[in-house]
């Protein structure tokens, strides 16, 4: 069982590597990532590619909006991580 907290950490690790000049420690989970960090559409594509590369998790294009905030990321990705485990 992968906990929500563990999923959050995995996503945060990816975001920290992409937005490497931003401070990611004070992210508000319910606020859109775009509003808090310097992320554009190319960077969201990178989050998708990193999820695939690091965790073999596929995010189809129609689900990209589910990655908008940390909270929605965890809600959307936790079942995917657990389906693997």
């Amino acid at each position, binding site marked *: 069982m992968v906990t929500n907290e563990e999923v959050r950490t995995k996503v945060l690790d990816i975001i920290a590597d*992409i937005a490497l*000049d*931003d401070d990611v420690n004070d992210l508000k989970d319910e606020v859109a990532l775009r509003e808090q960090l*310097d992320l554009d559409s*190319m*960077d969201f*594509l990178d989050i998708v590619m990193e999820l695939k*590369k690091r965790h073999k998790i596929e995010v189809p294009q129609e689900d990209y909006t589910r990655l908008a905030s940390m909270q929605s990321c965890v809600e959307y990705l936790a079942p995917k991580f657990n389906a693997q485990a």
Partner: protein
Amino acid sequence: MHRLNHSKVDCVIIGAGMSGLAAGIRLSMYDKKVVILEKHSISGGLNSYYSRGKRKFDVGLHALTNTITQDDRGKPFNKLLKQLRIPLGEFKLSPQNYSLIQFPEQTLKFTNQIEVLIEDINRRFPKEIDGFLGLLEYIKKFDEVNLNNETVMAKLVVRNFIKDESLIEMIFCPLLIYGSAWENDMDFSQFVIMFKSIFLEGFSRPEGGVRTIIDLLLKKFSECGGELRFKSEVTRIISDNGKVVGVEINGGEIIECDNILSSMGLPETFGILDQDQKNHPRVGNLSFTESIIITDKKPRDLGIDATIIFYNNRPQYLYQKPQTLFDKESAVVCFPNNFIRDDFDEGIMRVTNIANFDLWNEQLLLSKEGYKDHKDIVYNESLNILKNCGLNSTHEVLFRDIFTPTTIKRYTGHFGGAVYGSIDKSRNGTTKISGLYICGTDQGFLGIVGSMLSGISMANLHILSGSL
């Protein structure tokens, strides 16, 4: 004999310049099998370096444009850093002091803060200040990197805001000579790219110059597991039924691949296609001579603390191929000592003039001696230009080196020594051959930051997004 190499790669990248290396990093980061093939024995392409004795010299790069600070977000340089996963601090950027656009009647000053230029225009062209501010707002809102923008000539657009032709000439001068493949005008999208990168974001110098940038890219590429082969000239692009199947290098070895990203230039790429194509892209007209002068004293001790002077000695600015070997009436003069942090022990000055490739090539074929004599003329004129810029001549010259359009052709492979490539660009990077894409100068994002963003965007758009 043909030595067949059956190891197939996902993508061959032609050229280890800024765009090729940046594309290579993106592709190898996401586990594509990539090989970069570089004709030369060092990387950098149009922005490279060399050594003479203990001295190190940059070629191409006068200054990095698109300068950002730790507080900036969302700018082109920010995008680049995130995509390549390189922190800003690694570049150790030092901003410019200030730069000048020096014309016979007027001089304009600008820094990395646009307010300085606004104030100077207000002082020298008071009737035009509202027009200039209007232009500024229009530029800030314009989406210059939209790949579907139509081609519109920039002077037509700018004349809607500014009436005084001499102010228009002055604004265009730095933007043309730092990136335009077109003579005397440019596409408006490219104008906006250049305007933002030079007037709104500004100049800086990485500690160690162009080497620092190239070394950071090389290190990242190698960490991502990419392969780079020097002295590997692609002599043929092999296609089958309009689809890429591989390349031939050094006239023998064949590497199979699904995709090719070519940064060698559009006419140059067409030149190695195995099937004859109609409508060959045109070879660009703009090439340069440059005098590099090392002195015992530093420019600021000789009366100049400007970082770059865009010098023009005519009422009109002629950004075009001259009918003479080089144009002595206009130049870009760069003083690498004059960034906020001075990295040098000696004085260094670079004087760059627009030049005519065909005439230099003729000279070179005629006689080595004559070619050398003409290089001396370029050097002597550069001393005159420095004097006209206000440099007092109490210094001793310790070393000098002069390069010409033929030097540029020899080291970059660009036809006609065309520094900014062809006037025909492939903005979306596609060609008539499926799997063959263009990045770098002839895709059309300009400057060093532009060329790296070009490699990144073409790799993302055509190769990575297709495999998601």
